[in-house]
Structure formats: C-alpha cells, structure tokens
C-alpha cells in the first residue's frame, strides 16, 4: 500500500509544485480570475488523462510503449519550454520597477490569464496519461481489493497536492520582491527536473542514444561513449532506494533519480547553468535599477477573443 502511495506521490509531485508556484504568482498580483483559469487548465488535464487512461486500459487498443514514452517525453519538453519562456517573459516585461508597481504591471501582463492556464495544463498533462494508466491498473489489483489499491494511488497524488499547497502557502508570506525572484528560480529548478525526465523517456524509447541502445557499428570512441553501459553517469540505487521516501521526494522535486544517464545529467546541468544565473542576474539588476519610467503596458488582447 505504501509502495502504491509513493508511486502516486512521485508521479504527482512535480506537477503539483509547478501549479503551486503558478497559483501563488497570480494570487500575489491579485489576479483571482487567472487562478480560476489555472484550475480550469489543471482540471481539464486531469480529466483528459483519466479518460484517455481508461480508454487505453479498458478499450480495445492500448498505446505502444514507444508512443507512450514519446508523448511523455515530448510533452515534458514542451512544458520546460513554456515554463522557461514564461519566467523570462515576465522578468523582461517588468524589469526595473519596484515590487509594488511591478505587481500592477504584471497584472496587465498576464493578459487574460489563458497563458498561465496553458502552463498549468501542460505541466499536469505531460505525465498524466502514464499516471492515469497506473491508477487504472491499481483497480485490477489482485491481492487487495481494487478499491484499496486505487485509494492508495490517489492518496499519493493527494499527498503531492498537499505539498504543492504548502509551497503555495509559504510563498504567499514572503516579501513581494523576494517572492518574484524565488518563484522564478523555483520554476527553473523544477523545469530542469522535468527536462531530465524528458531526456530519460526519449532515451528509453530509443529516440536518443543512451544505455538502452547498442553502439552502432562503425562508431568512433567518442560516439560509443553515449551508448550501452558507458552512457550511465552514475548508478547509486543501493545508496538511495528509488522506491523509498527520499528517492521519491528527490525525483519529484529536483528531478534527481538514483540512476541517471550522462545525457540526462548534461541536459539538466546545462539548463540550470545557463538559465538560473541569467535569471538571477537579470532579476537583481532589475531590482536595483530605480528607473521612474513606466513601460507601456502592452495592449492586452481582448479576453475571449478566439475561444
């Protein structure tokens, strides 16, 4: 039961944390309407995943392994791109304004709020199908009543949601300028984890070279190092059990898993090394500058334009 619960926690944690930050963000700048839209996006993603999962589980056709990994991996890449872009876009637009003013600018910047809603949607949907398949599978449990397995899985996801909610509550308490910095930095750290996850999925499916593929004939020594056993960066499952509480929490927050491939680690490190300093430098510079000019708020597209 605990094992099932932990799986649910691991699968749900990353999404819950991202959504927590998003909600704190829109709340902090007083856009309750956007919060509602985020919930709508998250709800839609959950519903879509559950329905798709059920169809694939109980219907006539399942999803091939490769397709499943491709969807998870590519959607994760999309999520990373969206989160990164959102963070920098907000930063750029609200550069050089003190905290109080900035919140007003941001309020206008959010546009009609569908953008953040889309980030929420993708963050949940990226692993939604896999998680839904897992949840439906627990209803076919053998040793225990199906209901118990199902309850354990859902509890895990609820526990992830609680952690996301705690983060949200905590973030609401901090000073506005600090908050903007931290929310962005956290989102970048989460996104790095999601990126590592995506690389791993795509390696498993054979779209990228990795430990699950043999060295192609005629490959040089450099190329060969990216295939087979040489492709692992480290394997320490005997130190941190991947099914233990610590392993689950690490995986669900910063994307660390006890066995990582070199490509995964490189992508994760490159992403962090590039984006985090960029973001922090820009963010501090923005806070120090005391320019009085108010940038023209972009004409927010009319709400409900094309939907």
């Amino acid at each position, binding site marked *: 039961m605990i094992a099932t619960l932990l799986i649910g926690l691991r699968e749900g944690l990353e999404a819950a944390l991202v959504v927590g930050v998003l909600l704190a963000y829109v709340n902090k700048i007083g856009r309750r309407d956007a919060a509602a839209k985020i919930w709508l996006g998250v709800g839609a993603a959950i519903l879509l995943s559950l329905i798709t999962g059920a169809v694939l589980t109980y219907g006539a056709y399942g*999803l091939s*392994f490769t397709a499943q990994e491709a969807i998870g991996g590519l959607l994760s890449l999309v999520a990373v791109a969206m989160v990164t872009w959102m963070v920098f876009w907000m930063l750029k637009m609200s550069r050089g304004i003190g905290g109080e003013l900035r919140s007003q600018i941001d309020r206008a910047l959010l546009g009609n709020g*569908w953008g953040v809603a889309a980030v929420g949607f993708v963050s949940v949907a990226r692993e939604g199908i896999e998680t839904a398949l897992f949840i439906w599978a627990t209803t076919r449990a053998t040793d225990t009543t199906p209901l118990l397995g199902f309850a354990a899985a859902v509890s895990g996801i609820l526990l992830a949601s609680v952690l996301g909610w705690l983060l949200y509550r905590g973030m609401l308490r901090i000073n506005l300028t600090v908050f903007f910095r931290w929310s962005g930095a956290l989102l970048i750290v989460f996104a790095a984890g999601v990126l590592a996850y995506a690389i791993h999925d795509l390696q498993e499916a054979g779209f990228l070279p990795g430990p699950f593929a043999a060295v192609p004939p*005629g490959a040089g020594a450099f190329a060969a190092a990216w295939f087979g056993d040489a492709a692992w960066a480290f394997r320490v499952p005997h130190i941190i059990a991947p099914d233990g509480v610590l392993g689950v929490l690490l995986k669900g927050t910063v994307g660390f898993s006890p066995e990582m491939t070199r490509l995964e680690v490189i992508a994760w490190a490159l992403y962090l090394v590039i984006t985090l300093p960029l973001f922090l430098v820009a963010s501090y510079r923005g806070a120090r500058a005391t320019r009085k000019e108010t940038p023209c708020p972009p004409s927010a597209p009319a709400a409900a334009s094309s939907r």
Partner: protein
Amino acid sequence: MSTISPRRGFVALGAIGAATLTLTACVPNAGTGANAQSIAVTASDTACNVEAAEAQSGTITFTVKNDGSKVNEFYVLGSNELTIIGEVENIAPGSSRDLTVQVGPGDYFTSCKPGMIGTGVGQAAFAVTGDAVATTPEEDAVVAQYVGYVKTQTEELVPQVAAFVAAYQAGDDETARQLFPIARINYERIEPTAEQFGDLDPKIDYRKPGAIEEGLPFTGFHRIEQDLWLDEAIANYSTPEKDHYPKDDLKPLTPEERKEIGDQLVADVNELKDEVASPDFTLTLADITEGAKGLLDEVAAPDGKLPGEENEFAHTDLYDFTANVEGAQVAFDTVRGLLEANGGEDLAKQLDERFADMFALLETYGSYDEGFVFYDTVDQQQRNELAAKLTALSEPMSKLTAGVVQG
C-alpha cells in the same frame, strides 16, 4: 519573440504538444485482434517467471503480477539485451499490469526490476517465431532483385561446373585446367549466400587445410585442383612448415576416383541451385549488405586470394578476386536506391569511385576472356598495391549496412 503575444506563443506550444499526440501508435489490447497472445508473468523481489519462453510473432500481451514486496518493473529487451522493446513501470506490490508489444521473429529477453534497481533479476531468453513483420514494398523489391541475381548465378554455375568436370573426368587435363578458374566465377560472386547453406560450402569450396582442421573429407573444387596441379601440390606440401599435413592423398586419382569426386561436385552445385530456387529462400537487406562486405573480407582473409592461398596449386587467385569484387559491386548496386533514399549519396559516390579503382587495377592483370596472370608471378609490391585498393574499398563498404538498414 518581442512581437508575439504570450498567449499566442502558448497556443503554438500547445499545438506542438497536440502534434505529439498524432505520433501515437496503437497496439491491440489483450484478447482483441487476430491471434493475440497472452502470457502471464509472475514477478517477485527475487524472480521473474514468464509463463512461456516463446511465442508467435505479432501482438503479445504480458500480464505482469507483482507478488513481491517492492514496486516492480517488467522489460522486454532486444537481442543485444539493451534495446527496450517495451516496458511497464510502477507495478505496485499485489497489483498487476499489462504490457502489450508487437514483435517480429527473433531472440528477445525478459527481465524484472524489483525496487526499480539496476540490472534487474530473472533475465530470461524469449524466442519469437513466425512470419516477419511486414517490410516496406521498396525493400521487398530490392531483396527480390538480389535474390534473382543469386538464382541466375547458380543457374550459370551448374553448366560451367558440368563442362569443367566433364573435361576432368574424360582425362582432358589441359582443358580442365583452363576451365577451372572459369567454373568458379559464378560461385565466387555469391559466396556469402552459398555459405548460408551450412554443409554445402565446405563440400564445394573448402581448401585442404580447412577440411583437415574440421575433420571433413577433402572434396570439391580444390580437391580437383590438387589433382590437376599435382606436381605443384607435392612441391607445396613438402615444405617443412606443411610437414604436419597428411601426404597420402598426394598421388594421382584413378578414373573411378575422378568420377566420384567430379560427380559429387556437380551434385553439390545442383543442390545449391535448388536451395536458392526454392520459394522459401529469402534474404534480408542486412544479409545482402553484410554479404557484400563479406565478399571483400573473403579476398583479404589469411587463407584467401590476396595472400595467394585460395588456389594454392593453380595460382588462379585473380579470377576469384575479381569475381568476389564483382559480387560485392552487384550487391551494393542493388541496394543503392535505399542508401540514397536514406541520405547516403556521398557514400554511394565514394563506393562507385573505389570500385572503379579496384576494377581498373585488376584489369591490368587480365580478364576472364583473355585470362589473368598467374598469381605466383605477382610480386609482393604488386600484392601490396592490390591490398591497398581493397582496403580503400572495404572501408566505406563497412558503412553500407548502417546506411541501408534503418532503425
């Protein structure tokens, strides 16, 4: 980026996400679809028991039940034990999950990963038999074309061998010596294919040392060669380094023995022709490309043409050399379209040039019609030159399979 509104950007990204969904590939679930097979797997913390170790090609559903105390994963791996054909993760203790895969015939492995750790436990071989998964029509056409070539060569081989054997059995050694290299041409062009029929190649084309090493009777082309160039053979096997070879067969064969050995060679090449003509005979693309490379390796082998060991008594190695290169060239030419379709134009061009160089050099030594010089008159420097051209050709040839066979 500055002119794009965030909302529009997100919608675009969303579209990319949606596009990934169009990549979906569906597999029939258990109990549906034609000849769906279901195999039960019992996983635990220490074992991975797969109910059956073999199945028919097509759709296979593994129902994996976790009887252990740890979260488990189940993998189906390719023959290299690395490629993941399919996996199902997050099998909680006490629960059961399905993995459905579509596989063609071949060797696979199954394995479980209790606790999601490391190399897993209970790795076992899993064999899939039956029909190959459908290939693309274009590939089929290429394979059919090459199979046609192999058939034609065996059909030409039979009368050439018959004429050679007839002269030999009639005691017309002069004619037989002239026909010997000619009778081998068609065989040498398709040697790797002939080698697929395990027992035929040793009977037809084993050299004396090879036959002795494997404890097989010394028959076929080279047995007749030894008899036709007996003086050469006696001289050859009197050297101290060949002292350990038996000498009892270094005497002229009687007409009866000639008949026996000649008839067997004719029968063997006829059997080869029939094997190749059978509707069951087919090759894969990789067989063709690897065979092309194999033909070049044959030339360079320590007991091959380049060192002059192939026809150690007749010294007609240049005929075989040329035929091997011709066979490789035909194989490459047959798959050229696929290579170029996969973006291998540069490789194709390079191979064309290297083949032309090789043939140009071989032509300086003669031709089938005019006759080639005997290889014992080719000095070491000339042999080095031949080796250099051959190596220059082998090198791009080793990339052919990867360029043609995708995935």
